[in-house]
C-alpha cells in the first residue's frame, strides 16, 4: 500500500515536472516575445514622437483646439498622447501574441478576437478625436459669428453646435465599435428627437421673450433705418 502511494506520488510529480518542462519553453518564448515587443513598441513610440515633433503636430492640434480639450481633461500633449497610444497598442499586441504562444486554448480565441477588433478600435478612436476637434472648432466659430453679428444668446448657439456634433460623433464611434447597435441607434434617435423638441419648445415657449426681442430689434432697426438713417463708417 505504502509503495503504491509512493509510486503514484512519484509518477504524479514526474508528470508535473514533465508538464512544467513542456510549459517552460513556451513561457520563456512568451517572456521573450513580451520583452522584444516592449523594445519594438518603445522604438515605434520614439520614431512616431520624433516624426510628430518634426511636422509640428502639437501646433496643428493647438490650431484645431484639441490641445485645450486635452488640457481640460488633464491629458498630456497631442504628440505624447498619440505616441503613447501607439506604444501601448503595439506592446499589447506583442503581449497577446506571447500569451497565444502559451497554447492555452480558451485564451487563443480571445487573442484572435482582440486582433480582429483592434482596427475598429483604432478607427473609432480616430472618429472620436476628429469629432471632438470638430465640435470644439465649430462651437467656437458659431460663438464668434453670433457675437460679431450681434445675435442674441451666442453661448446657447455655440453649446447647441457642440452638443449636436458630439452626439453625432458618439453615434459614429459606437457604430464603429459595434456596441449594442440597435440600442445606440434608438438612443441616438431619442437624444436627437429630444434636442429638437427641446429647441422647439425653448423657442416656441421659453424663448418667447427672446424671439420677441430679436424680431423687435430686427424690425425696429429697419424702421429706424427708414426714419433716421445713420451714417455708415467704413473701417478702411
Amino acid at each position, binding site marked *: 500500500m505504502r509503495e503504491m502511494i509512493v509510486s503514484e506520488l512519484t509518477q504524479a510529480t514526474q508528470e508535473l515536472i514533465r508538464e512544467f518542462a513542456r510549459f517552460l519553453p513556451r513561457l520563456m518564448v512568451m517572456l521573450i516575445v513580451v520583452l522584444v515587443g516592449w523594445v519594438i513598441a518603445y522604438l515605434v513610440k520614439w520614431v512616431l514622437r520624433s516624426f510628430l515633433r518634426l511636422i509640428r503636430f502639437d*501646433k496643428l492640434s*493647438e*490650431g*484645431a*483646439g484639441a490641445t*485645450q480639450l486635452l488640457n481640460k481633461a488633464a491629458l498630456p500633449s497631442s504628440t505624447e498622447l498619440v505616441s503613447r497610444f501607439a506604444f501601448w497598442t503595439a506592446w499589447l499586441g506583442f503581449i497577446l501574441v506571447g500569451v497565444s504562444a502559451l497554447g492555452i486554448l480558451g485564451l487563443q480565441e480571445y487573442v484572435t478576437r482582440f486582433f480582429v477588433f483592434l482596427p475598429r478600435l483604432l478607427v473609432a478612436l480616430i472618429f472620436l478625436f476628429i469629432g471632438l476637434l470638430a465640435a470644439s*472648432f465649430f462651437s*467656437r*466659430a458659431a*460663438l*464668434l*459669428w*453670433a*457675437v*460679431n453679428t*450681434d445675435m442674441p444668446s*451666442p*453661448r446657447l448657439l455655440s453649446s447647441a453646435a457642440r452638443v449636436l456634433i458630439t452626439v453625432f460623433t458618439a453615434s459614429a464611434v459606437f457604430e464603429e465599435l459595434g456596441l449594442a447597435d440597435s440600442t445606440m441607434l434608438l438612443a441616438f434617435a431619442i437624444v436627437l428627437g429630444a434636442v429638437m423638441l427641446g429647441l422647439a419648445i425653448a423657442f416656441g415657449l421659453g424663448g418667447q421673450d427672446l424671439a420677441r426681442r430679436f424680431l423687435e430689434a430686427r424690425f425696429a432697426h429697419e424702421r429706424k433705418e427708414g426714419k*433716421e*438713417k*445713420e*451714417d*455708415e*463708417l*467704413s*473701417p*478702411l
Partner: protein
Amino acid sequence: MAEESILTDEFLRQLINVGEADILVGVPTYNNAATVGQVVQTIRAGLLKYFPRERAVIINPDGGSRDQTPDLVRGASINDLEATSDLQALRTLHSISAEYPGGASTGAALRTILAAADLLRVSACAVVSPESTTLEPEWIERLLRPVYQGNFDFVTPLYRRHKFDGLLMRNLVYPMTRAFYGKRVREPYASEFAFSGPLGSHFLAQEIWVHEVGRSGTEIALTISAITGGFRLAQTFLGVKPHLDARSADLVAAMRQTVGALFWSLEPNFSLWSSSHDSQPVPTLGTAPEVTLEPLRVNRKRLYEMFRSGVAELEPVLKSILPPPTLSELQRIAALGEADFCYGDELWARTVYEFAASYHKAVISRDHIVQALAPLYRGRAFTFLVENREASGEEVEQNIENFCLTCERLKPSLVELWNGKK
C-alpha cells in the same frame, strides 16, 4: 515663363497683340457695372492728357462678373472720348479685358496685372479700384508720374477723409504697420497704388501667392513686401477717399483682409521687424490732405454694447489668447458705464500685440483669433469717437500720432512674447 502660366490663353493672346508698353493701368473687377464705365473713362482721360507720348495699356482682369462689367469696360474703351474732347494719344492706347481663372479674388486679379506688366515690360504700373467714383484724371498722373520718372518704386495714396472715416486703418492697420516695419505709410491697404517694373517682378517672385494673403488682403502684403524689400516709397495726395460698396463695411471681412494679412506677414519677416525700433517718414508728394469735419450720425452706443457683450460672451476664447492681466483689465473697463468707459492707447496696443503673438503661436485657429479681435476693436473705436468728438483735424492727427508712438514704444513687449519670454 512664370507669367504665362498665370495668364489665360485669352489674356495672353491679347497681350501678345499689344507687344510692349511703357505704362499699364490695372482695373480688377467683379460685378462693378454701376461704376466701372466711368472709372475706365477717367483712366483713359488721364492717360491721354498726361501720358500722350507713352505706349499705354489698360488691363481689366475680371472675376467672372454676371452684370456685364467686361462689356461696359470694352464699351467705355471704344466710345467717342477722343472725338468729344481735344485729348489724343500720340502712341497706342490699348484696352484689354478678360476673365481670370479660379473665381473672384483680389489677389488673383492683382497677380494677373503683375504678370501682364512683367510680360509687357512696362516701366510704371498703377492699380485703380473699379469703385473709385471720386477718381479724377489727375489721380493717374499723381500715381504714375513719380514711378515713371524713375524716382520711386512704390507710390501709395493719401486721401482726404472724414475724421471718423477709416477707423480700423487709423486705430490699427496704419499704426501697427508703422510700428512693425518702420515706415509711415498712411494707407498700407490701398485700393489705388502704383509700382515700378522691377518692383512688379519682385512682387511676382514672392511666396505670398501660395498663401491665403495671395487671395485676400494682397494689397497690404504687397505694401509690406515693398517696405521689406528696401524699395523707394512715396505717398501722393489724390483726393476724396471713395466710399466703396457695402462689403467694405463688413468689419470681420475687413479685419481678415488687413489684420489677418498683417499678422501673417510677421512670421516670414521676424528678423526685420524685431530689429527695428522706430519709424521713418515716407516722402509725400502734393498738398497735405485735410481732414473733413462735418457732423456724422454715428451709433456709438451700439459699438460700446457690442464691446461689452463681446468681452463677456467670448471669455473662454479670450482666455486662450490674452494673458490674465490684460483680460482682467478688459473685463474691468467692460464693467464701466458708457460715460466712464475708456479703451486707452496703451491697453489697446498691448491687446493687439498679444493677439499678434497668439496668432504666431496659433493657440487656436488663426482665423478665430482675428475674428475675436473684432469686438475689442469696437470698444477702441468707441473711445476714439468719444475722445475726438469735438477735436479739430490737427488734434485728431496728433492723437493718431500719439497712439503710433505708443505702439512703437511697446514693440519690445511683442518681441518678448514672440520669443516666449513672457
